[in-house]
């Protein structure tokens, strides 16, 4: 018993060292207190109830956000299409998260996206601008290079310099709330891919290769928590969705601090696993940015 506590202490110390050098992402996960799972997957009929269930399993939102902190909630609202087509994150889920954050005493909650469609149309048609505003968040624009700042990315092989949205840089905590979808280029889009909406110029990512560059979005700053909306999952014609897009009633929500693990689980939902899984997940795991092997993670499967 005593030896075990001693070992735990050593592991914790190593984790602290790892954190301070900010070079490893896997170590904290290993050293995490055993009572909290690495990943929570909840199935149910209501995204808000599923979120509450997932967060209580993870130890509550207060584990992630302290009073007075500035929080960025980053949904996917890139497309000027209505919520039911599930090309954007569900507005009710985002609204619920914003409300919970404010109830917790978060100083300010921001929501923005660098949209693909015209930004005003996407903010409006997705229903997210209205939902987030009504919940009390500040909905910020992301449509001008002036909102973005160039940063040097440590350890980058491709994106040595990135232009990140000032809110992404300045926020104390980032809650990444993607929607799970099929994606024509990246195969699957969920947690990591959603961070492309915090980058100004996406041309270089496409040019240098999505599989190589998407993992590097985690290098500068990782989201505090990833909440993947897999309620209605677009199986084809993504990410915008087309008339002939096929859907899956996933009825699931995935929550994890590890964006790579969340993406690996999301791929399993969409049915793209093994050699078919997007290379960016493998690449991210190989570069130590997260864990892609679900069998080695502590996963909690719940129903709400």
């Amino acid at each position, binding site marked *: 018993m005593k030896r075990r506590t001693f070992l735990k202490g050593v592991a914790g110390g190593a984790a602290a060292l790892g954190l301070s050098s900010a070079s490893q992402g896997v170590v904290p996960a290993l050293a995490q207190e055993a009572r909290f799972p690495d990943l929570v997957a909840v199935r149910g009929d209501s995204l808000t109830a599923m979120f509450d269930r997932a967060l209580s399993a993870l130890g509550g939102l207060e584990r992630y956000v302290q009073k007075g902190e500035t929080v960025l909630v980053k949904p996917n609202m890139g497309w000027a299409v209505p919520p039911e087509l599930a090309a954007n994150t569900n507005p009710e889920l985002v609204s619920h998260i914003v409300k919970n954050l404010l109830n917790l005493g978060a100083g300010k909650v921001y929501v923005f996206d660098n949209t693909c469609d015209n930004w005003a149309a996407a903010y409006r048609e997705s229903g997210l601008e209205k939902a987030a505003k009504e919940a009390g968040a500040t909905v910020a624009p992301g449509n001008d290079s002036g909102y973005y700042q160039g940063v040097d990315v440590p350890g980058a092989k491709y994106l040595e310099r990135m232009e990140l949205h000032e809110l992404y840089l300045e926020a104390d905590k980032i809650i990444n709330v993607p929607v799970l979808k099929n*994606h024509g280029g990246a195969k699957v889009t969920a947690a990591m891919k959603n961070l492309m909406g915090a980058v100004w110029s996406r041309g270089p990512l496409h040019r240098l290769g999505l*599989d*190589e560059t998407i993992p590097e979005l985690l290098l500068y700053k990782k989201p505090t928590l990833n909440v993947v909306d897999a309620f209605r999952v677009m199986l084809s014609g993504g990410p915008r969705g087309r008339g*002939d897009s*096929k*859907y899956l009633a996933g009825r699931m929500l995935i929550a994890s601090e590890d964006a790579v693990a969340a993406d690996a689980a999301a791929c399993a939902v969409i*049915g793209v696993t093994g050699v078919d899984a997007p*290379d960016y997940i493998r690449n991210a795991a190989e570069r130590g940015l997260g864990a892609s092997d679900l069998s080695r993670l502590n996963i909690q499967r719940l129903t709400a």
Partner: protein
Amino acid sequence: MSSAGETESGEGKGGGRSSPYFLLKWIFRAMGLLLLVLLARALTHPDGDSVVLSLYPKFQPGQIIAGLFSHGNSAFVLSFLVYAVLTALFGRFFCAFLCPLGAGLEAAVLLRGFAKPKGYSYRRSGIWRSVVPFSLLLLFWAGITFPYGALEPYSVVAGAGYFGFRPSLALLVVLGSGYFLGRGFCNFLCPTGFILRLLSRRSLFGMRFKEGCVSCGKCAKACPASCVDYRNRKLDAGRCVLCLECASLCPAGTLSYGREAKAALGKAAAAKTDAAKTDAGKVLRRRAFLVRGALGAAAAAAYLTGEKARAEMLPELRRFPVLPPGALSLAHLNAHCTLCHTCLRACPNQALHPCENMDLALWRKPVLVAARGFCQYECVKCTRVCPTGALVRISVEEKRVWRLAQVRLKKESCVVITRETSCGACAEICPTGAVYMADGLIPGRPEPYVKPEYCVGCGACQKVCPVEPMPAIWISGLKYQDMLAQRAPKAEGPDAVLEDFPF
């Protein structure tokens, strides 16, 4: 110059260094040299933003003529008209001080003056002088441009400048011709000189003989263009490059720049009509008419041959610009658009811009520039603000199938092929499903494909394509906008159901 010493002691007014033409001649030479030095500096010190390089060639009639016949857009038409009118009024001023090769030729003429004081003599005009330059133009019109470039003054100098003005064959030939033939190059080799010669043959102002000529012949001896016929007191204005050698030497001051005296004009006209009345005159006129007709026909044939080739080479984007939704066609837009540009302001994606093509039919017309923004699916704002109906009102429902342009995909430029990476930016943003990713050469590496029958030509794919400088996927304009016959089919049936946790 060599004969300047002789004329100093010459009698009467005019001639020599006291002549205003002497000063003007050197001012012209200095201007020519200054421009040549500026150009040479710009050519040998490469600088992407060089003002000299961006402006200088645009004022070169040889380049304007080339552009006129290969593009025919109004910038060239306007510049050419300006040159044509100025040359018809004032003669070949370009050859006097604007031609980059003229300055070099003047240097060769000076050199000859020191070595061969014997000078030049008058040579008759003749159609043989047009054979080389006219052939060069014929070839150029037919689409073979390099012979033209080998003798067109700016191309010769700029081409030599690229090699740091090392002695090249072209340069040696041209400057050698200056030594042996004076400005002969300008009158039987240079294609620019040929066109300017035709324009200035009856120029309003030019070098003219006034009363008082003593027939000393100094002018003819000094004329590097061999165009002064002092015996008949005539000067071939077409060949005169306004070098002012003759006037600066004329001891009697009878050669000067100005208009033809009225009396002389009347006399010439009368002589001409008299000559035309004779049988020989009639034969000559008929011959001239036939020759000109044949040359015109040859020019037209060459131009049409080349035009066919040029039309095929012209990028589709230039053939038909992408017009805003509701413009129907360029003809419809031109019939109604007042260039108020309200549609440009209304466009939420800043996709509409004033057309920068100088073609009169297009200039400042609203066009969609996909490189800057794409036409938002289901957006009809521009058609709502147009005050004249140049953009007809279309409904959102119509807009979903309203075809502005057609998609073009050059897959061999796509990053999926060239870099073997995942991209899909085009398919990602395509609102209609006309661009989609599917398996291609490499398993698990989706490539873009297009279904033109679903494409509305919004240009979103072109906007996001990361390939530089020319995107691998782009839109090209249509002659007439129309509506798609079909939309991508809708998926039917309920969503598939996920039974349990898949992990």
